[in-house]
């Protein structure tokens, strides 16, 4: 099912398309040759550590910056030289940027000075409608300063949506809020987005938020997307060591292939074949499933990088087993996150029961995901 969503629909031009877009500031490229396609109605998230170019990418789409090279297209048309006010985008910033000298209602209605409200309603009706939508029906006459952070964020959202933009751009809109509120609001944001069916580009540094809220995620690093895929794919099948380590907890192993099995059918879920490779990692032989994409190319002697999520490392079980000692544990409520010391490297496991001393953890070949294989 993941591969279905990944496939490019051929019928219409993407709502937003970046084609070889580069943005340089002096000698440094904040955004480096990025090509992305955001589909109509999609909730698309740019996620990555600070300085990865995600905000610059968003600003290029909004028109606050013009690319040094490459083209940004909306529904197939280049928007080069089109100022932000003519792009029909709604933008929400991290600090909300509510106009302090206007009431909440005036803030929400500001965009209606330049565009008639959609569906032929009056300006007042539209403002009321939007405040209703963000669950602040009585706030129109209030002063933005009197609102809480979460309320301001919702007003900013209502203001961005009021003129009925084609595209909603959200730049870390929740990073200034506390964790609980953030989780509640992201559900609300997603609900509103689905209800309106508006194409949305969301920027965040919080990978958990990105996974929770998006249809597709672009994990960015050094100005380039490392992987663009639905959240499940990014989580389960990271395409690079960076993605594997950035998205969620992970245990990344690298070693040399010593043997490759005959093909076997895997899970019955996929077509094609899966083979099992025996990999020597620091003297321990671990068995890893390698699927169609890499299956035929892998031969003994190749270097293989793979990862196993903490939740797939089982205590005293699994085809490949490792003996390790408990280094530290964090009680998280539902589970305990335990860091193990395995011959000088860290392993992370999740358990329900407390662990101590020496433990054996293991995993089955299918629980490992191959990130890279090369002849080197």
């Amino acid at each position, binding site marked *: 099912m993941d591969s279905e969503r990944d496939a490019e629909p051929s019928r219409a031009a993407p709502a937003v398309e970046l084609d070889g877009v580069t943005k340089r500031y002096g000698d440094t490229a904040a955004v480096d040759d990025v090509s992305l396609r955001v589909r109509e109605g999609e909730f698309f998230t740019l996620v990555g550590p600070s300085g990865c170019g995600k905000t610059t990418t968003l600003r290029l789409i909004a028109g606050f910056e013009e690319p040094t090279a490459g083209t940004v297209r909306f*529904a197939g048309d280049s928007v080069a030289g089109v100022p932000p006010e003519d792009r029909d985008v709604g933008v929400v910033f991290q600090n909300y940027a509510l106009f302090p000298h206007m009431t909440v209602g005036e803030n929400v209605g500001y965009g209606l000075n330049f565009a008639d409200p959609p569906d032929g309603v009056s300006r007042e009706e539209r403002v009321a409608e939007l405040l209703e939508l963000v669950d602040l029906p009585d706030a129109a006459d209030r002063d933005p300063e009197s609102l809480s952070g979460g309320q301001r964020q919702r007003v900013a959202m209502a203001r961005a949506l009021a003129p009925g933009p084609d595209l909603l751009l959200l730049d870390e809109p929740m990073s200034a809020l506390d964790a609980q509120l953030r989780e509640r609001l992201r559900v609300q944001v997603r609900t509103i987005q689905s209800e309106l069916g508006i194409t949305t580009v969301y920027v965040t540094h919080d990978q958990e938020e990105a996974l929770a809220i998006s249809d597709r995620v672009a994990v960015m690093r050094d100005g380039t997307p490392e992987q663009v895929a639905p959240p499940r794919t990014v989580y389960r099948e990271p395409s690079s060591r960076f993605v594997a380590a950035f998205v969620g907890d992970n245990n990344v192993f690298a070693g040399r292939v010593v043997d490759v099995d005959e093909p076997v059918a895997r899970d019955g879920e996929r077509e094609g074949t899966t083979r099992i490779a025996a990999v020597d990692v620091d003297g321990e032989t671990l068995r890893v499933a390698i699927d169609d994409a890499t299956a035929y190319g892998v031969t003994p002697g190749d270097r293989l990088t793979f990862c196993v999520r903490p939740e797939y490392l089982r205590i005293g079980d699994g085809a490949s087993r490792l003996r390790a000692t408990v280094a530290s544990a964090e009680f998280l409520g539902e589970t305990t996150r335990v860091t193990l010391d395995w011959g000088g490297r860290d392993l992370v496991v999740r358990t329900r029961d407390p662990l101590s001393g020496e433990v054996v953890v293991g995993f089955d070949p299918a629980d490992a995901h191959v990130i890279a294989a090369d002849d080197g």
Partner: protein
Amino acid sequence: MSDANRDAAGGGRTLRDRLNGRLRGRLLTALAAVTSVLLVGAFYYPVGTVLIEAVLVDGAPTLAVFGELLRDPFYFGELARLFAGESPVAVARGLLSPDRRLGIVGFTAYQAALSTVASVALGLPAAYLLARFEFPGRRTLRSLTIVPFVLPSIMVAVGFVATFGTNGTLNRVLGAAGLPPVDLMFTLEAIVIAHAFYNAPLVARVTTAAWESVDASAVETARSLGAGPVRAFFDVVAPQVYPAVLTGAALTFVFTFGTFPIVLALGGFELATVEVFVYRLVRDLNYAEAAALAIVELAISLGVLLAYLRYEARNSVSSRGVRPLPRKPLVPTAPTAREVLPRLGLAAYAVVAGLVFVAPIASMVLASVTGGDGALTLEHYRFLLDRQRTGAAFQVRPWPAIRNSLAFASAATLLALPMGVVVAVLTTRRYRGRKLVDTAAMAPLAVSGIIVGLGLLRGLVFGVEVAGWRFAATGAVAIVVAHAVAGYPFVVRTVAPGLEGLDRSLIESARALGASRARVIRDVELPLVWPGVVAGAAFAFAISIGEFTATVVLATGADAYTMPVAIERFIGRRLGPATAMGVVLLVVTGLSFVVIERLGGETRGL
């Protein structure tokens, strides 16, 4: 829904819209061009024509005038011998000898240095009081520290004459107490105290602001690491306050180095400073020497300013007081030395401050209603009324002075406001050469008012010929232009911080919502910096009403005299009418401030 929207918006973007967009984009460029032309025409060109005379004798460029000036002990005292080629050792010995001569330039620097020390000494306790103590009226007192700065200098001079003059308040009090009278008039002390009156509040203001932005948690961290309260003050608070004190000191030095009306009124030609001498040379029509002297003055002022700016660039600490230090009550909480001593010190300071700041104004008001015999009288005001009714054409009459002052100030403010706002916008944008634009736009603050006045007199009033067209302005127009040029840097200074501090995402939000760049200025930026604009207007108005230096040059002979010029003409003959005129000026200035504040709505203190 989104497709329909796009069609509507796309279809609406016609050629006319695009053309409009282009024009709006150029609006700022056009305004900047107009401002530049104004600045060149009203400042750079006139000043240039005067200054060029220092290096151009009979059409040939020469540095002879400078050479003579630098070697003249009359101007440079013992230092002139150095410029004349004598050995530095001999000059140093001469400087250390008791009968050394400072020369005009040396004396000017000397009195400026003394004034700076006095201003810092008088300003720091006020900053301590305002930043660290809580008491009723603290905010009002803090706002009041701006008042001396905008008071017309000639009026302050009258106040000081009324206080320290032979028949002044001080001698009356001393006489009543059975003490011998003191004569402070035409002494260095009087000048220094008058300068402190002007500049100590400035020092107090910048220092208080810095002190208030010290984060309490920084002090608390130092304390928890083992520093005592005194040590914590010197290690954490002082380093953050010290640059502000230096700012105040540098500005004080520059202002007092270029001082004119105070020295003219309190020092006379015996204690003349450079600016007073430039005025005298101009009156004697010795333009070359006046220009050379003005250039020397400008070089020293700019040197101090640049040295200070370099220091500031290296040492600027931009910490935002997340949580300011808690203020202490003015009443001691316990009878310990630590609690009581600082407050006793402040009480003593209050007496001195009362003498320096309140006495001149109070004395002026008192003197305006006191007759020669010491009895209360309205004769001085009656004199003004009589003069208005029966005064000859060549005599100074009060009503034209008031009318001119108000008219010039209104016109100058209307001119200075757009100029200042445009320059503020230009200097808060990011581009190459911004520093240069900033400096060029601020130069009027550092150039001698006499030279600006003279340049305008000869450049504008006597007329200039440009490409066969002859332009000439009346004295009144020249005065308005001079006042606008003198006042607009203050508009820049009050508006720019607001623009600088404006959150960029506010502007971007408005644009994403459909507002053009020009529309964002109207809807978002101007409303948010409006308090700064109003404060700038008040400044420009006050500067114009109080401006004396350029006005006195431009108003020669003409009937374009203002209230300060009228005061100066009265003071030469009798103090009484001058004090009465001073009170009129005080009342008119005060009322104008109320009006500006009403017109502008709510203002934030600067």
